[in-house]
């Protein structure tokens, strides 16, 4: 191994050094930042966006993009609430219906892009608008909660199943009692599975090949269309898992929540390009990217920074990360067509 030049070192480890520096600064200013509770809070705050970001990573790997993930997540939230509160069905039905909905939306996205040749950004943008409207039609735009009055004058009698709420609220004893929320466990499991899928299986390998040169992949006998559709199905299912966790945390189908999901998760996935100088979408980087955003926001919150500075900081971090990826590493950005 030849030694790395300073530029290569900066590209490879710059972002991790930046993150370590951030943790040190916050810890010095607020010693409580280093407590286990604070760490868990950070993980919990990024659990949902992290899962969505891992889904969007799958589409980025095949040189696609999924803008509908935020809308899929809020649709899953509304759907789970509708299933339990209005149809009075159980937790398992709610979860399965949400996952199926995510898969179907991903399938439609994929077919629009592969078969109808709609550009990925436009297809998923259209799907986003469609879902944002669709999820509010059954309740005339109202949030869903137990006891709400329905259009026909009846009162909704159903309620969120306790097992379902556990997904968002239960905490597992780990070192300290009641420390780790179940949603964080879900995040970690999904992150590891995504990493294994993309890095260690042949399907992940083939998806990267498609993202790097789709024409060459097709001439190697790979069914490019099928893998493209698969990527959007993965993205849709991941987004619906995020929506389930959101619903379980809130305990209601809240039409006002979930607005930031899309931008936060896309930011995490794009920041992930810069981690370890990967210069390509990757699961590990995405997870670190999500963590980075979480650390930043938790630190700023503890320092009592006003809320509106947070979006500004997030945007600045994203710009810096993209400069790391595209300018410093000297590789041309992957061309989009």
């Amino acid at each position, binding site marked *: 191994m030849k030694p790395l030049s300073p530029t290569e070192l900066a590209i490879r480890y710059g972002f991790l050094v930046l993150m370590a520096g951030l943790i040190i600064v916050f810890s010095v200013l607020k010693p409580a930042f280093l407590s286990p509770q604070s760490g868990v809070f950070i993980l919990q705050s990024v659990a949902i966006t992290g899962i969505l970001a891992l889904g969007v990573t799958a589409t980025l790997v095949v040189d696609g993009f999924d803008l509908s993930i935020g809308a899929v997540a809020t649709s899953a939230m509304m759907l789970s609430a509708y299933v339990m509160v209005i149809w009075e069905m159980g937790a398992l039905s709610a979860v399965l219906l949400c996952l199926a909905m995510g898969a179907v939306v991903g399938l439609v996205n994929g077919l629009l892009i592969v078969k109808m040749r709609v550009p990925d950004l436009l297809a998923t943008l259209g799907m986003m608008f469609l879902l944002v409207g669709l999820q509010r039609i059954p309740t005339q735009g109202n949030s869903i909660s137990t006891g709400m009055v329905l259009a026909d004058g009846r009162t909704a009698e159903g309620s969120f199943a306790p097992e379902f709420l556990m997904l968002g609220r239960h905490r597992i004893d780990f070192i300290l009692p009641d420390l780790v929320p179940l949603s964080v466990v879900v995040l970690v499991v999904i992150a590891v599975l995504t990493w294994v899928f993309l890095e260690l299986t042949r399907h992940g390998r083939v998806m990267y090949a498609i993202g790097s*040169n789709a024409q060459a992949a097709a001439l190697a*006998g790979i069914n490019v269309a099928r893998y493209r559709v698969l990527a959007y199905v993965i993205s849709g299912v991941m987004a619906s898992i995020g929506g389930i966790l959101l619903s379980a945390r809130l305990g209601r189908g809240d039409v006002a929540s979930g607005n930031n999901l899309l931008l936060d998760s896309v930011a995490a996935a794009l920041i992930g390009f810069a981690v370890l100088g990967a210069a390509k979408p990757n699961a590990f980087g995405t997870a670190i990217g999500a963590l980075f955003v979480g650390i930043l926001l938790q630190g700023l919150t503890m320092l009592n920074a006003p809320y509106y500075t947070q979006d500004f900081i997030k945007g600045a971090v994203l710009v810096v990360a993209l400069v790391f990826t595209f300018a410093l590493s000297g590789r041309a950005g992957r061309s989009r067509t």
Partner: protein
Amino acid sequence: MTPQAITIRGLTKAFGRNAVLRGVDLDLPAGQVTVLMGANGAGKSTLVKVLCGVHAADAGEVRLDGAPFAPAGPAAALRSGVVTVHQNINDGVVPDLDVASNLLLDSLADGAGLFLNRRQMREDARRIAAAVGLEIDVTRPVAGLPLADRQLVAIARAMARRPRLLILDEPTSSLSLAEAQRLFALVDRLRAVGVAILYISHRMSDIRRLADRIVSMRDGQVSGLFEGQSLDYSGAVRAMLGHEITEVDISIPPRGPAMLQATGLRLKPEARAFDLTLHRNEVVAITGLVGSGKSALAAALFGLEPPVAGTLQLDGQPYRPANPGQAVASGVFLAAKDRLINAVIPGFDIQQNLTLPFTARHAGPLSLIRRAAERAAAERAIAAMGVVCQGPRDGILTLSGGNQQKVVVGRWMAEASRLLILDEPFQGVDIQARRDIGRRIRDSAETRATLVLCAEIDEALEVADRILVMSEHTVVGDHRNENIDLALLMAQVSGAAEQTKEPA
């Protein structure tokens, strides 16, 4: 003695270490059509780009009507009277604008005044269109025109400049016969008014119809000039493709049973159907000019584009692949040409590029890739192909072109196949890499049928047991690679063997 519109002396141009033009001397007389022939990479397009101001020459001199000509850019070349109509017609027109705006585009681009005078524009446009015999409603958007009309619009626009030199780069490649006739009539008129025309084409029928002189290019130099009453077309092709007696001794092994049988294969609706049999333990090369149908044949065999008619049998079984995946599953592999577009995965290292089509062979439970097996396969392929590299985990783009080519060819030799098709496997590689790849193709050929597509006859002579010639999307020649009649082969490549069919 016709005056020379353009004289070129000692023109050189290199990109990095790659010398593309190596001293070109060329005269283009006014009022004559000079056809320029050359294989891919001979330097044709670079020469055109120097003349039309896209590239500046490194050394040498170009004179236009006796005055030094070194345009600073395409616009300067246009102003000096050098007009180019590119192969890709849409480079020459703006599809969303109407015909009138397109015809006047150059004056719109550098004209004065803020507002457009619509009526004036239409009148000017009609005058320009009439000058080249283009009868068309100038208010129609160009996007709605057939290809041939778009091309005439591009030429008409160019002619409004009263050019001294008109360069036509493969202008008929997407035209029908009738449309091409219109173009030829226009070229005749321009020739009559004293425009020098440089016509780049591989279509022998075009060349016979138009050429006053033929210039062949090879390896960045003019390798042949043919003029006079009866042009030596075979000689021009030979000068373009070149042939030095190569020092590779082919000993033709006994061929095995038939592996692939094609019956009544028709690659284009208007092409003649042909039969083809490829045998086990036999390397067959197909040679022919660009557009002669070599790649169309490969596309049919690999399931990219079904043939218009005909049946295929592979190892005695009916074979009809619907996509490359099915072809690979049946044991028919294609190493595609133009590696950077069709083969190299730039984001992958050497190992991942080598194993790409066969990841399933190296995957265990849950499709997890077995790293040791993959690495061993990659190292075997690297050793077999003689890829010069530090190790299998180097990025593919760190390799030289020849070694990249070894990787993307070696990819398909790592597993056993029934029919291996190699489309231009020696493209853009040096002589050493070419020998390495050729030897590897021959050494491993015993268990399969091998089909090598190459435009350069030398390459075919170096690698094949049998050489087929394609022209006009059909097979026109079949030679055992032993005391080959090169004159006949060249004549078949240039289509001269069928000259009776086409009145000049």
